């Protein structure tokens, strides 16, 4: 079982890796400084959010499947960033052909989104730890799972079919659509529950 400390060590290692790759890219391609800066800032932001969430509910209070999903998702986010920056770095050094590598990477990320969405409804927190009605939590989890699977399939299709210039934008739109749909559904469930419980 991953402890609180080892979890933070993993995030720290990923943050350093992303920062290192970002700095190397910045040095080689200073014209894309804004992109490198955003990439490098992402992991500290994720780390901050994780620290805030864990201060409200420690990792040890999560169920096994929840903990695996939570830690796996953070590690995945770090690896996506590191992978994307690594590809850019190797391309800048002339070691790889950027087009094909980006396409393969895009497909891999999409496949992971599908796999993540697929298992999402199986992540059950103990009933006593749930902060809303179990039926609503279940409904949102199923919706999120389907959204990420469909968004991930769209992401994969975009990288497989579209020209490189458009694949990135369309794939990102599929991913964003899934996130927005889940956020809207979650907001709607929260609003309905609050109205139902208010006198």
């Amino acid at each position, binding site marked *: 079982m991953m402890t609180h400390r080892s979890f933070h060590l993993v995030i720290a290692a990923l943050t350093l890796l992303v920062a290192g790759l970002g700095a190397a890219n910045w040095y080689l391609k200073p014209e894309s400084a804004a992109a490198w800066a955003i990439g490098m800032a992402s992991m500290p932001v994720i780390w901050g959010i994780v620290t805030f969430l864990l201060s409200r509910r420690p990792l040890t209070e999560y169920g096994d499947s929840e903990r695996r999903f939570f830690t796996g998702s953070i590690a995945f986010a770090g690896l996506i960033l590191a992978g994307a920056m690594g590809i850019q770095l190797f391309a800048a050094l002339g070691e790889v052909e950027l087009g094909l590598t980006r396409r393969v990477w895009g497909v891999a990320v999409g496949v992971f989104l599908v796999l993540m969405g697929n298992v999402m*409804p199986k992540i059950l927190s103990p009933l006593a730890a749930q902060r809303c009605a*179990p039926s609503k939590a279940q409904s949102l989890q199923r919706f999120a799972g389907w959204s990420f*699977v469909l968004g991930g399939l769209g992401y994969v299709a975009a990288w497989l079919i579209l020209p490189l210039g458009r694949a990135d934008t369309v794939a990102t739109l599929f991913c964003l659509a899934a996130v927005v749909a889940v956020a809207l559904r979650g907001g709607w469930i929260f609003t309905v529950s609050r109205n139902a419980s208010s006198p």
Partner: protein
Amino acid sequence: MSSVFKALSDPTRRRVLELLRGRPMNAGELADNFESSKPTMSAHFTVLKEAGLVEAERDGKQIIYRLKMSVLEDALLGFAKTFGLSVHAKQPNEETES
């Protein structure tokens, strides 16, 4: 995966999963929707648990059953419902007796 197909091959178990799509329920609430005896229903629940499609959690004196289906398994359930998956499976009471 074969345990999932086996679990989904039975209409009673599919109906249990559809009921659980609405909300988590205890064993009594679920059994009230069927004419089968309690031991038969209990055997159905066991098959579903072994396939990893539901999770049972004790809440005081009750056991609450919750859906634990991946998106793929959910899609398979929809497929089985639409096209009538009819893999020959042993009846739960046969399994428990053997």
